[in-house]
């Protein structure tokens, strides 16, 4: 075949996007990653300066007003115990919470994802189960933890169960939205090449749903973490956990330690967000 004359070729659009055009996700949280992406020293300087001002500003106010620790802990004291006592006071409980969270999320999200793929194939089934799904999404599963303690004992399993109940429906409802997207032209394309139902699912429906599935996992993870920590707070277990530590330290008015646990929980939440933001960028960037 001969070459098409160059004058027939289209203009090639620029592949470079300006910094303003870059996708910043559903929430513009560039402040968290802008250290690595900031273009100018001014931006980096401003970010560090504001962080420093908040940290040392709070420290200065608390010192100047002579605020006792039981009213509000000093940032330096919180960081000191967080770093100094991490292995002894916090790491074992972080591990407990992480086990509950990861196990619960794995179980809940898998069931949610599979159910979403199944129910969206049958509109009738979807109509029948929809009220239960909405009820499960809107009911705070923390409320079930005291009941689950009675049924499942004082180990990790009640919290794992609650995390699964909290995260599963979130994954389900978002993934179902994704699977409900039926791009008939793309399905027809696959069928015109003889694709089976499974091939259409794997090559068209699943990739089409993937951005919503990732959103479901992000929301489900955050709900799962809330439920894990909250569950530990409302119904103490012999294993401990970050939530149980929050209750423990506040009851002893050890606010430095309390602040350290809060920082760990906050870091987990932010970590989940960052993780899924990058997963979304890697696997769902086509839907910018």
């Amino acid at each position, binding site marked *: 075949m001969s070459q098409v004359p160059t004058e027939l070729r*289209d203009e090639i*659009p620029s592949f470079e996007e300006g910094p303003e055009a870059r996708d910043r996700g559903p929430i513009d949280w560039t402040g968290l990653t802008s250290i690595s992406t900031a273009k100018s020293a001014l931006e980096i300087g401003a970010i560090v300066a504001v962080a420093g001002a908040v940290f040392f500003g709070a420290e200065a106010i608390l010192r100047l007003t002579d605020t006792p620790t039981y009213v509000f802990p000093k940032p330096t004291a919180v960081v000191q115990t967080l770093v100094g006592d991490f292995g002894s006071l916090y790491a074992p409980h972080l591990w407990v919470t992480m086990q509950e969270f990861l196990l619960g999320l794995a179980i809940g999200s898998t069931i949610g994802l599979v159910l979403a793929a199944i129910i969206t194939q049958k509109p009738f089934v979807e109509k029948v189960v929809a009220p239960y799904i909405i009820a499960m999404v809107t009911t705070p599963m923390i409320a079930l933890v005291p009941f689950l303690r009675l049924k499942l004992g004082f180990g990790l399993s009640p919290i794992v169960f609650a995390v699964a109940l909290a995260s599963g429906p979130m994954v389900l409802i978002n993934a179902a939205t994704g699977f409900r997207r039926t791009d008939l*032209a793309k399905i*027809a394309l696959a*069928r015109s090449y*003889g694709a089976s139902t499974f091939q259409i699912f794997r090559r068209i429906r699943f990739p089409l749903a993937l951005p919503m599935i990732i959103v479901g996992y992000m929301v489900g993870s955050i709900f799962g973490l809330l439920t894990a920590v909250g569950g530990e707070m409302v119904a103490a277990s012999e294993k401990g956990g970050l939530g149980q530590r929050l209750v423990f330290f506040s009851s002893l008015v050890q606010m430095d330690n309390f602040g350290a646990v809060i920082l760990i929980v906050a870091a987990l939440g932010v970590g989940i967000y960052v993780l899924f933001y990058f997963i979304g960028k890697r696997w*769902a960037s086509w839907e910018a």
Partner: protein
Amino acid sequence: MVLDPRAQAAGAGAEASATAPAAVKIRTVDATKVYETKSGPVSALESFSVDIHDGEFVCVLGPSGCGKTTLLWAMSGLHALTRGQVLLDGEPITGPRPQEIGMIFQEANLLPWRNLRQNIEFPFEIKRGKPDRARIAGLVEATGLGGFEGAMPRELSGGMQQRASIVRALAQDPALLLMDEPFGALDAFTRDEMNLLLLQLWSETRKTVVFVTHNIAEAIFLADRVVVMTPRPGRLARVYKIDLPRPRTIEMTFEPDFIAQIQEIKRAVEAGGPHALEVE
């Protein structure tokens, strides 16, 4: 260019011997499609019979909503007909025929999560075959897509996306190419380029092409024969034989004969309804 009323045919095979000695590639017999909708049955296609010969370029022309796409989807085996049948090489079509038929859709219909190469290789994955890399490379070069194999669809212009979809279909080496208003979303300049490219590829590969469009000039420019459909329900109104010499150039579209033919066909389409069925 002469408008030849003797070339018209409302019935299947009526002009088969007169126009082309080639065998009939695809034939629709009494093709009728009725959609069941909430507000009752809607007839999209009615008693549509046409013969398309091996190696022929036929444009199906009609106003929006006249059942052109329904006809094409029935030909591809993606839709079942309510009545009548489609014969490919004399065999009735009952489902998709991935070995013989390549389908090109409105807009490019690329998968946005795959880059150009992965899109072009998509049919091979479905068929669980090894991609014909040499053939793909030749087509990619011929369509001016060389160097863009790694680009994502959203990074490409509409014209380039549609080229990729043509490469995707031609890489399968189908004997019959069904094209459903493929250039409808493109601007006039890009459309001209795409039409020239399509004719060039067609002259090199000699596929049978059924090309659906609502653009009269495009239909005349591309086709050996233009099949005009009536507004809904789509019936065969007239068949125009196009005597424009090949290879065709954009300059031909400015000739008085070409413009006269556009007007002629435009009147036929606008007359529509049962009147358009009256063939002298």
